[in-house]
C-alpha cells in the first residue's frame, strides 16, 4: 500500500515553485479584491495537514532515490509562519505516524518530535500505529508532554493515563465558526503487537465516527466536521477513508494518513445523505504540507477557496 505516485510528485514539484512564489499572495489579493468589489468582509481559515512524518526532523538525505533534500521541520515551520501571516486563522494537524524512522526517534523516544510540534503550534493530531512502538506507557508520557490534543474516537485504551489524556474530538472556534475535529486510527491487528498495545482495543470504527460526527454537528453546533484519520485511503479490510466517506453522515473532510499516498488532488466522495466529503492525504516524511482554505463570507457562509486557474495545469 505504500506506493509512491511519482507523477503526482513531479506535478507537486513543478507547482510548488509557482505556489511558493505566488499562491498565498495571489489568492489573498484576489480575495481582497473581491471583498472591495462587494464591500464584504471575507475571512480565510487555512487548514494545514501532514501525515506519516516518521521522525523526519531533517530533510530527506540528498542521495534519497525519490525525494532528495525534501521536507524538514524547519521548512515546515517557515511555511506555517507564512500561511499564518496571510490567513485570518490557521489550523495545523498531523494525521499519525509522527514517530519512528530515524535515529532521532531511537535516541529521544519521540520527545523531540513533540517538543518541536509544540513549538510549531500544532493544533491537534491523531495516533498512527507507530506511535505505539515503545508501548502505551511511553506513549502516554509523550501525550502528556504535548501542548495539543491527541484525538482518537475508535480506540479504547486500557492504560489509565491514555484514557485520561486522549479525547475523541475537539471543537475549535475560528473566525466565529465552530469546527469539530475527531481522530480515527487504523485497525491495529497485525500492525502492533499486544504487549505494545497494552490492552488497547479498536471499536466499531464507522459507528463511532458517525456518532461522533452527529454529536459535533448537532450537539456542538459545528459548521465544519473534520476527521484526522490514520486508517489509510484504501485498505483490504475496508476500514479506510474512502469507505468511511461513502458510509458517513455529517463529515465534511477526511485528512488521511497511513498509506503514504501522494494524492494529486483531493478526492470527493458522496456520503449517505448525498453530500460531498473531501479526502486528502499528502504522502509521507513531511515532503508536502496539505492546505485547504475555507472562506467565511460576511453572512458566515462557508466555501472552499479554489486556487487560481494558473495553477490548475
Amino acid at each position: 500500500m505504500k506506493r509512491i505516485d511519482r507523477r503526482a510528485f513531479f506535478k507537486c514539484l513543478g507547482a510548488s515553485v509557482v505556489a511558493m512564489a505566488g499562491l498565498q499572495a495571489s489568492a489573498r489579493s484576489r480575495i481582497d479584491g473581491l471583498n472591495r468589489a462587494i464591500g464584504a468582509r471575507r475571512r480565510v481559515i487555512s487548514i494545514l495537514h501532514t501525515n506519516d512524518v516518521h521522525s523526519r526532523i531533517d530533510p530527506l538525505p540528498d542521495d534519497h532515490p525519490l525525494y532528495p533534500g525534501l521536507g524538514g521541520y524547519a521548512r515546515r515551520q517557515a511555511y506555517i509562519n507564512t500561511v499564518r501571516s496571510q490567513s485570518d486563522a490557521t489550523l495545523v494537524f498531523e494525521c499519525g505516524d509522527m514517530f519512528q524512522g530515524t535515529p532521532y526517534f531511537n535516541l529521544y523516544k519521540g520527545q523531540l518530535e513533540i517538543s518541536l510540534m509544540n513549538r510549531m503550534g500544532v493544533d491537534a493530531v491523531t495516533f498512527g500505529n507507530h506511535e505505539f512502538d515503545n508501548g502505551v506507557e511511553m506513549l502516554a508520557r509523550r501525550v502528556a508532554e504535548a501542548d495539543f490534543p491527541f484525538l482518537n474516537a475508535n480506540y479504547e485504551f486500557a492504560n489509565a493515563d491514555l484514557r485520561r489524556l486522549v479525547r475523541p474530538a475537539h471543537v475549535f472556534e475560528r473566525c466565529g465558526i465552530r469546527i469539530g475535529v475527531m481522530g480515527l486510527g487504523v485497525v491495529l491487528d497485525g500492525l502492533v503487537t499486544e504487549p505494545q498495545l497494552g490492552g488497547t482495543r479498536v471499536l466499531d470504527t464507522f459507528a463511532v465516527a458517525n456518532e461522533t460526527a452527529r454529536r459535533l454537528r448537532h450537539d456542538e453546533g459545528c459548521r465544519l466536521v473534520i476527521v484526522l484519520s490514520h486508517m489509510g485511503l484504501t485498505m483490504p479490510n475496508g476500514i479506510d477513508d474512502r469507505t468511511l466517506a461513502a458510509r458517513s453522515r455529517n463529515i465534511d473532510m477526511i485528512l488521511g494518513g497511513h498509506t503514504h499516498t501522494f494524492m494529486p488532488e483531493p478526492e470527493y466522495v458522496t456520503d449517505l445523505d448525498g453530500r460531498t466529503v473531501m479526502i486528502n492525504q499528502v504522502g509521507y516524511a513531511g515532503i508536502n504540507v496539505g492546505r485547504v482554505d475555507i472562506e467565511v463570507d460576511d453572512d458566515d457562509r462557508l466555501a472552499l477557496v479554489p486556487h487560481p486557474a494558473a495553477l490548475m495545469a
Partner: protein
Amino acid sequence: MLMLALGAPAFTVAQTRLSVSRACMDSTIAPDPAMLALIAPYRDSIATSLSSIIGQADMDLEAYAPESPLSNFVADLILDKMKEEARLTGSVPVPDMSIVNLGGLRAPIAKGDITMSTVFQVMPFENTIVVVEVTGRQLRSAFDNMARRGGDGLSGAHLTIDGGRVASVSVGGRPIDPDATYRVATYNFIADGGDGYTAFVGCPVSKSGIMVRQAIIDRIVRISAAGRGISAAVEGRITNEKD
C-alpha cells in the same frame, strides 16, 4: 464565479476541485532559523553518538537465506545473552535455542570499523529479547514456518529443508520430542507471531526487557575490549537437501 458558497447549516463541499492542495517542502522555502537552532544540538548529539566506533569487523557480515554470517552472529548473541540473563537475574528461563528473522536484519556489517550508526542500520526496530516456552509440537510447527521461509537466523538447533518443508530438525543434537517443553530465545516480534511464527502466539513468554540493538552493541564492545574483531561462520545449521 469562484466562491462556491453553500448554504447553512453545515458546510458542504461543492462540485469544485482544488487545483493545488499542498505545498512541497523544497529548497525554495528558507528554513525557520529558530526551529533550526532548536534542532541543532540534537542533531550534533546524534551525529556524535552515531559516528563513535565501537569495534571492528574482521569480515563482511551479511544476512541471507538459508544461513548467513550476520544471522548466525545475532542468533548466537541473543542465545548467549538470555543464558547469561537466566544465570544472573533468573528473569528468564535458560533457553535451549534461538530464532531471529532475516527480515529484521536491515543492513550488513561491513569489514572494518563498526559505528553505532552501523548497528542502528542493522537493527532500526525497538525489538526486545524474550524467551518463549513451547511444546515440541509447537516448535516443530515453528520450524515448518522457517522451512517455508527458506531459513532464518538459528542457534542451538539444526534444520534441513527439502522443497520448503522440514526434512530433518534437531535441537541440541537431538530430535524434537513433541511432548517436551523447549525454551526459545527470540524477539518480541516473533514471539507475537510475526513473519508467520504463529506457533508462538499464546505461549508463555518471559520478557528480558533487553533491546536487541543494545545486545548487539554489547557483544561488539565486549569482543572489541578483548582486542578482537567480530566474525561469524556459515557452518551448516540450515541446509537445503537438494544443494
